[in-house]
């Protein structure tokens, strides 16, 4: 069966510090991968998605970047965090080539920038 893991689960970082959130998927190949951010009262906002290694699409201009160094690994990064980067970050995957539209989510990472 397929599983998705992301870490760390909780992170408290000072303003200006770097960030690295990691996500890995097991049990499937060539998945579409996504990073969403959830802010209070705003639902989920798509940040990045990837259809393959090294292929990243950004949905929203921001202080963050994403990379996909391996087929089933997706990393969310920042060189210098801002207060506005605080939130709950969710990694997700979907089956490429199947137009089902269903996304499978990780457990999420709570980021607090102080």
């Amino acid at each position, binding site marked *: 069966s397929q599983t998705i893991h992301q870490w760390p689960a909780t992170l408290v970082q000072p303003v200006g510090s770097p960030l690295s959130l990691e996500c890995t998927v097991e049990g499937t190949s060539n998945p*579409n991968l*996504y990073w969403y951010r959830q802010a209070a*009262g*705003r*639902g*989920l906002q*798509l940040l990045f*998605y990837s*259809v393959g290694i090294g292929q990243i*699409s950004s*949905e929203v201009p921001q202080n963050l970047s994403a990379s996909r160094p391996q087929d089933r690994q997706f990393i969310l990064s920042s060189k210098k965090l801002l207060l506005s980067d605080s939130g*709950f970050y*969710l990694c*997700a995957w*979907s089956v490429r080539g199947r*137009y*089902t*539209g*269903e*996304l*499978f*989510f*990780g*457990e*999420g990472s*709570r980021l607090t920038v102080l």
Partner: protein
Amino acid sequence: AQTVTQSQPEMSVQEAETVTLSCTYDTSESDYYLFWYKQPPSRQMILVIRQEAYKQQNATENRFSVNFQKAAKSFSLKISDSQLGDAAMYFCAFNGGSQGNLIFGKGTKLSVKP
């Protein structure tokens, strides 16, 4: 632009009763998928139910069912025989793109009273 609107920020239901959560969406596409996701306090997003737009029959998953009105662009979720474990945030989501990106509503917080 495609949008999803959940007009009920909070809802409350008595245990064993029935509750309906509302969702409307806006799109010019004719072929798409709609979803209801549940996010319990653990924060992991869990798929509750899925509806394909080309299917006229409303989807059902045990105590969960939808009322899909394509012409009205309405997609409500009905929870029958509500249980304490149903308490969570519920998100309506739309997918009309080949990349599988989901567009989410802002969510409805459901409380279940014993």
